């Protein structure tokens, strides 16, 4: 029983990590209609940047902040110079962000090499909490906490703030929001930078959990795409549910059917699609 509980926590922790990544992906998708295929690569970049800072004897938390800041700045630059010209052109966006993912991933390999690295767990969170006979690693609990906080923050931003209102309105009728005097371009840039920051944040937080290696960007991108598909296009609530489901199924699947865990996640996605092609929380799309 206690083993299953510990596995469950691991699953939920992974799920929260997937949520943090998928949230960035799905917000960009929902608000700007851009599939950012470089999202997984920004995740990887965040982890590697933090790795460098920590190797320079910097505190984990400062490294985290710096990595988030740098990925956000990179996201800002990418949006301003490269993504802006291809708004509304779906194929172009896909190809462009795909090309970017190649460039960034290859740059990471160039700078940091191909060997595996892992981020150290911060000292504060290296222990574990025992409840009854079950040991819960603190760091995993912490990731779950951050995921919940992020979900709350997104809910708060969406429903209680002016920015949230503008974004919700912008999704429905971009031209009208623009006519009301809102600088939609600026909002888009902000949303993209925010999404990139989320990717960077989850990269650093994921570093101690899943390690760092070349090709991790693809794996994480595919997982988060599955999460987004299960949850529904552009719905971060759907991503929240979908991510936890994927995390738990994947982790438990690894225990019971080691070679088929990925297959199970995929089958669940297929099943969701057969029943609800628009995803669990997605709106009907034309």
């Amino acid at each position, binding site marked *: 029983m206690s083993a299953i509980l510990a596995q469950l926590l691991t699953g939920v922790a992974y799920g929260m990590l997937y949520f943090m990544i998928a949230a960035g992906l799905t917000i960009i998708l929902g608000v700007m209609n851009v599939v950012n295929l470089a999202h997984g690569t920004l995740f990887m970049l965040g982890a590697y940047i933090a790795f460098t800072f920590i190797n320079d004897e910097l505190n984990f938390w400062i490294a985290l902040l710096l990595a988030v800041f740098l990925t956000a700045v990179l996201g800002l630059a990418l949006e301003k110079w490269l993504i802006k010209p*291809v708004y509304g052109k779906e194929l172009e966006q896909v190809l462009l962000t*795909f*090309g970017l993912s190649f460039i960034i991933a*290859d740059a990471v390999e160039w700078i940091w090499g191909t060997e595996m690295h892992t981020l150290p767990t911060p000292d504060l969170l290296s222990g574990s909490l025992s409840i009854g006979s079950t040991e819960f690693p603190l760091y995993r609990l912490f990731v779950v906490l951050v995921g919940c906080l992020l979900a709350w923050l997104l809910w708060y931003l969406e429903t209680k703030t002016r920015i949230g209102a503008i974004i919700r309105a912008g999704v429905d009728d971009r031209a009208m929001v623009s006519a009301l005097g809102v600088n939609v371009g600026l909002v888009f840039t902000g949303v993209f930078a925010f999404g990139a920051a989320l990717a960077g944040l989850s990269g650093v937080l994921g570093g101690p959990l899943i390690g760092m290696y070349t090709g991790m960007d693809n794996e994480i991108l595919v997982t988060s795409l599955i999460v987004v598909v299960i949850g529904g296009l552009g719905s971060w609530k759907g991503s929240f549910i979908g991510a936890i489901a994927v995390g738990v199924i994947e982790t438990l699947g690894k225990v019971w059917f080691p070679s088929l865990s990925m297959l199970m996640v995929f089958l669940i996605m297929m099943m969701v699609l057969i029943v609800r092609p628009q995803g669990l929380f997605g709106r009907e799309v034309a």
Partner: protein
Amino acid sequence: MKKLLFGAVLLTALVFAMPLVLSDFAVNLATEIYIMAIFAMSLGLIMGYAGMVSLGHAGFFGIGAYTVAVIGQHVANTYLLLLLAVVMSGLIALVTGAVFIRTSKFYFLMITLAFGQLLYVLFWQLKTWTGGADGMSVSAVMNFGFGEIVSPNGLYYVMGLAFVISYFFLHLLVESPAGKITKGVMENEARMSALGHNVRVYKLLVYTLSGSLAGLAGALYAYFNVFVSPDLSSWMFSGQVMVMVIIGGVGTLLGPALGASVFIYLQNFMSTYTERWPMIMGVLLVALVLAGKGGLIHWLQHGKRLLVSRKRTGEAVSQQTVKKGEAVH
């Protein structure tokens, strides 16, 4: 039809004459180009004639390649193996496609990507059959009933012929009523639906054909490379073939084939100088998206139009303009 036959004869003659002037290295490169051209045409078919952008097409390539590698250990018959590769990839395309085509653009893209990556992981994890990450060597040897084909020139002719046949098969398909309806669906799904066509059936048809053609390319590749690995199904490879299609130009059959030859040539050329090929490819792709208008085939057509319009009368020019409008769609 006469024009088509003439084209077929001309293309075949060209393919068969090439080894007379090419070096051994170039023949080998051309063989690979033919295979990739078939693969690129299969993706170009669904992208350019049905508006379906798949990022998991390498999955079918991998299925074809692993069919020859795995089943080829027990079955020697080349005809049977190629048929199996085509049928297997076609069947999987049919089943998955039936679910996938219910979704809209972004969804389709993401789901195909996830699907391709799933196959990649499967080939990776089914270690007892596929050799896992180390890949496996192909023991099957190509034999069409008149001796084993192992020499570079022999393989060249087979792949060249396969390319010509695939091209004309696709040509007939897109010119057929079904092909025209599919193109109509891409341009205006609601209208074709209102005209009484079952839109999904046509989409599924081209998706399935495209999948089985990609499977054929994969099977040929297994014979050519005598080694297969999960990388054949990775999204990196799916992306590469998409780049081939984009370089060449979407909306024609020869465009993707042309793109494949440029891509493979560039890859070979660049990799002798630098390891940073993915970065070069990425930059190329970004530049093409931001500055390139329609890919090589459209530049060529544009150039041809400029030449032709000087010679011909106004009527011919206006016909050309209509064609241009079609190509841009």
